[in-house]
């Protein structure tokens, strides 16, 4: 198992190196910028590359993209401060093997390395939490629904037709109908006429 670590911050770099080695892995190369990292990946083809995103020259995402495009065997783990889903989504487009946050690195890195070694993808749990909305105080059943579904249900409760709802929300009537079916499924309601309207009037108004 050969590992490459790249981070522009020397303390983090050395810390990560020490931590990875303490887990019993062999760190083959370390470097402090994206370009060197990419060149080393190209020449040495390590099994795993642990990359920071924010680096001078070429950032972690770019290195990842190149590895992905050139179909190199090296698996990339991004170790970053960026908790935003947007960043992760981008990395996921290039089939990132692991996405872990520096703040939780101690717990995540070991699990991540193990998962990646087995060929799986590991994503930090804390990352996913970021987008969850804290509204657990409300009706628990409603939490199963997406924002759009909740909005539509709200309008159904106001006795609005699908056509009207579609107009009000700038979406197509078909989409509204689709959402209705989904809501019925998610709420596990019987397939009856006006069942949603009756349910919505009862629970929302």
């Amino acid at each position: 198992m050969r590992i490459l670590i790249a981070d522009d911050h020397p303390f983090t770099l050395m810390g990560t190196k020490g931590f990875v080695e303490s887990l019993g892995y062999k760190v083959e190369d370390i470097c402090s910028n994206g370009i060197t990292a990419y060149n080393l990946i190209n020449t040495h083809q390590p099994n795993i590359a642990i990359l920071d995103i924010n680096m001078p020259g070429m950032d972690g995402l770019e290195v990842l993209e190149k590895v992905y495009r050139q179909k190199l065997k090296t698996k990339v783990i991004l170790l970053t401060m960026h908790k935003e889903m947007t960043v992760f989504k981008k990395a996921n487009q290039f089939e990132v093997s692991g996405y872990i946050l520096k703040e939780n690195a101690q717990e995540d890195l070991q699990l991540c390395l193990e998962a990646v070694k087995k060929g799986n993808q590991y994503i930090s749990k804390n990352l996913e939490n970021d987008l969850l909305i804290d509204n657990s105080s409300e009706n628990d059943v409603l939490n199963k629904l997406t924002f759009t579904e909740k909005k539509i249900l709200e309008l159904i409760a106001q006795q609005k037709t699908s056509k009207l709802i579609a107009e009000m929300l700038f979406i197509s009537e078909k989409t509204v109908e689709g959402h209705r079916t989904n809501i019925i499924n998610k709420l596990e309601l019987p397939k009856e006429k006006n069942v949603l309207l009756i349910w919505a009037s009862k629970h929302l108004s």
Partner: protein
Amino acid sequence: MPRNYVQYLLFCFLVIALSCQSGNKSQSVVYSKPPEEKSDTVETYLKDGKKLADKNYVKTYAVRIEKHIKKGEIDSAARILAIVGETYYVNYELNQEFINTQLQFLKTYEKQISVRYLSNLYFHIGSQYYEKGSTDSAISFLNKGLVEPTDYYTTFYKGNCLYMLSIIYMNIGQHDKSIEAGLKAQREFEMVGDTARQADALDAVGGMLRVSRDYDEALKLNSKAYKLALLSKDTNSIIGTCLSRLSLYNEMKHPNFFAFVDSAVVFANQLNVSKENKILIYSYKVSQLSQQKKLKEAQQILSEYKDIYQRTTFLNAKEHYELALADYEAAKGLGSPNIKQYESLIPEIKKNKDFVRLCIYYQILKDDAVQKKNYERAYEYQSLLETASDSITNIKMRTKVKELDRKYQVEKKEQQIILQQQEITQKNTYIALLVASLSGLLLAVFAYYSWQRQKLLRQEKTNSMNFTKQLLENTEDERKRIASDLHDSISHELLNLKSIFSQDLSVVNKKIDTIINDIRGISRNLHPVMFDKIGLVPNVEQLVERIQNQNNFFISTDMLYTGVLTSADELQIYRIIQEALTNIIKYAKAHAAKITVLEEKDKILIEIRDNGKGFDVKQALNSGKAFGLHNIIERSRVIGGEANISSSLEGTIITINIPRKL
């Protein structure tokens, strides 16, 4: 729209200018004949020459004139007099009562009559006096009629007065005056485009030359007059020129005389010729027949016209008849039975200085004396005839006639040149006027445009000043916010951390996590994380999701965009969408919003619409506030696009078009 308006104005100017110029097309005619004025039944009656014999004719016009005078309508009264005068004139009738009426009217109202009727009245009085044989009075009145012409009527009657004067001067032997008047008359008639009267005037000058025995010139002028008369198709003019030709041929002993008499007779029978003119023509026929010794036929004609001769007041007709009668009687070898009458008339004619008539009478008397073999008498009459004839003409006079003719030709040309020059100056004036008004118009349009532009620029300047001011203020606010964020959360948390450092590690750990989250929040508020790496669409989606959750506001998206713009431009679009959404949430009270980002062939289209309550865009933009809207417009401009904001009660639509750089 303003361009169309300008075009319309230009068109109007052109039309006006063209219509001004098309007014004087025919060159010599200055006043063309106005349409015939309508006349009522009484006036129609007065115009009818056949009614002159009517007993009530005089009474009819007298009553009518009195009626007009009573009402103070002097011009209407004058108009009646003009109509009656014309009727008398055309029918060669003489009426002392009518002369008196006219004189009375003129005496009382001369200063109130408009010029148009004045020249007309003077002409008719003059012509009546002439028919009466009172030459001096005729000349005096006709001269009064020579007013300064101002329109068709004044010009026409001035010409008539001149024409009449020409004839009178000819008869009293004042040749230079006759020619002067005749040529002047022709010019006046030319100005009103009356070819018939032109023919008459030329014919009169021709007659003058005939009397001066300048037969070649006379024949030339007569031919010219004859052509004009035929052109005018005016019976009187045709017959008039014919008669001149006849007397000319007769005097010249022209070989064509007999032939022309015959054709004139044919003419007289074909055309609707008045009885007086018929007498004239047939008089020549009688002379012809007498010379040919066809006495029976001559006598037949004479008896046929005897009745008319006795009734007519037209002196010329009487003379011609008498002359023909004399010819006939001479041919028959009889002494004239009327000789005594001729002798008795001579003193009156002498008094009137009518030398032409005098010559004719002496001729008759001489012929009669020869007939009666009274040679002593005949010689006496011959010498008298020669003196009378000399009074009409002498060599000096003849040269003077030619001189005058030439002088008038030159004058005529000069006048034409002046007329042309006037026309040119008039045209130039029109052009200058047109150019001036056009340039004035252009100037006005230009001034209007620049005023509008100035206004617009001023408004834009104020708006941009406001924008800059607010931009600076906002920057300051942003700094203040960051400072307070850093101070309030980070510093406090760090202080907190410092104080609890000795405590449990897990507490410290949690505290550090809070600090990291705080910093992340601050930095995310400042700038979307790794915007350039992630691209426009995911960032907008992230933004939409966050706003939906934070504000419980539904936003749908329709984004088909592959990333043709630079990252900097994309960031501007992101900010525009952010700004628009913030506005919608703050003010619109909408159910939902929709964001569209589309890549089209030649442009990128961004649209943010909502179904809120809308607002007055113009007022908001010029209010000095609305930083958000100006922000959207300015950012659109920065990326080479154009923002269009439209709003109604149904909601607001912000559209930004960014042309694609090829």
